């Protein structure tokens, strides 16, 4: 294989709606209807109230960096990003905190609190992997 690949995420029955939405570039989150709490990663029950009235809602896909680390060396030859690259936790404004990469910028310039918006990297099966990229002023 010459193509550089990521370790592609498996899909569970519960998380299928999340990954299906990525095919059209839509970021969706599971919400508990009863306690209005975002549920992430996707589950069969709400970890707040144990209720099972969960629904999927679209997100605008904007947020801020909660924490960031830059990996200085390539450790996986299959990984598409070349070091240095940024791994971050992003608080999505109308969603949840996600682990992700910050792309489209010098990784060393990524800071906690930086406004970011979702961007997509195609996976081999038509799904897309959500990543984030810096924005001006916090919104599109």
């Amino acid at each position, binding site marked *: 294989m010459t193509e550089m690949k990521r370790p592609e995420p498996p899909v569970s029955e519960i998380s299928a709606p999340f990954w299906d939405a990525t095919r059209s570039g839509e970021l969706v989150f599971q919400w508990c209807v009863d306690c209005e709490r975002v549920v992430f990663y996707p589950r069969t029950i709400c970890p707040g109230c144990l209720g099972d009235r969960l629904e999927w809602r679209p997100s605008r896909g904007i947020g801020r960096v909660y*924490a960031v*680390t830059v*990996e200085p060396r390539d450790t996986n030859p299959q990984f598409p*990003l070349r070091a240095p690259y940024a791994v971050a936790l992003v608080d999505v404004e109308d969603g949840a905190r996600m682990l992700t*990469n910050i792309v489209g910028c010098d990784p060393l310039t990524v800071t906690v609190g930086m406004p970011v918006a979702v961007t997509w990297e195609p996976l081999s099966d038509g799904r897309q992997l959500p990543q984030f990229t810096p924005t001006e002023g916090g919104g599109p």
Partner: protein
Amino acid sequence: MTPRVDRTLRGAAALVGVADAVSPTGQLDTFGRALEAAMVREALADAGLALADVDGVCHHASSVAFAEYLGIHPTFTDSTSTGGSSFEIHVEHAAAAIAAGVCDVVVGVYAGTPRSDRKRFGGPRRRGGPADAEVMAEWEWPYGMRMPMGAYALAASRHMAEFGTTSEQLAQIAVSTREWAARNPRARYRDPITIDDVLGSPMESSPLHRLDCCLVTDGAGAFVLTSAERAAVLAKPPVFVLGAATCHDHMMISQMPDLTTTPGAVSGPAAFAMAGMKPIDVDVLMGYDSFTITALLHLEDLGFCAKGEGGPFAADGKLGPGGALPMNTNGGGLSYTHPGMYGMFLIVEAVRQLRGESGERQVSDANVAVAHGSGMVLSVMSTLVLGTEAVR
């Protein structure tokens, strides 16, 4: 109506035997069950007890398989596996079982030989549950975070942004810990280091430098715990379990509610409350130092300083020899040993300090020690407050 009974494990059980195996080369000749059995043998000898006395067993993988290997039929068994904090939890559970009369003599053991395994097996032996792996494969692995240092780096990043903590302050923890290691002839690294050495060491996952990270060594250890009554007639001065508590609030770092506050903020105060003590009473702090940031978070969460003040608190060198709060006096995971799950060594050193057996690194008049284990990625915290007869 049945009257309510005050239930406590305070002072009901004591650590009476310990052993560990390490080498300045970082490698051991034996591994696996043979090494585990040797540790149990040594710890029992240290206690003046025999295998036939043992009626409880703790093992982080399978206490059942290990008891079969030993040929014993325990009435208490614990396979709690929470990463590096497994062994503090084993002590907690065993002490409770002894207090409740479930058993009388419990052994716990650990052996890890990742350094030799590279040669022996051509790489690390795999562990971990498939259910855990699936959720990590879906939500974390695609992003190329190096584990475990990437997770701890995120915590350090957040602490720096929120509280102004600096790399220099984190580095001082590594420097102070190395000062202790210099006084331990069995430590892996003993040469003094400076803050500049830490900052000049290669960046791992930013902001953590190589010298902010624990070692990878072979190592093994064991403990023996029995009732206070039985401890009184054994060879060595008993070290009593005065307080014990555990808490976990996530498995994956991306699920940690607040990256600047660990579940030690729950286990620590609970263990102190059980012991009837406060951080000011502690003579020796053994706080799991997988990374400098890990130790810093313990200082705050256990109440040695306020949240956010760990950096300035550590920066004056008070954690090193001669300082106000001796921490990780064996040289810690940063300089003594770290076979992957280091919690056992916290217990062993705490016992040795409270017995006055720590030689050149002995803290004078040590009567209270805390062994605070941290498992997985700041996920599972277990706090033991240990004390001598004088403070029981």
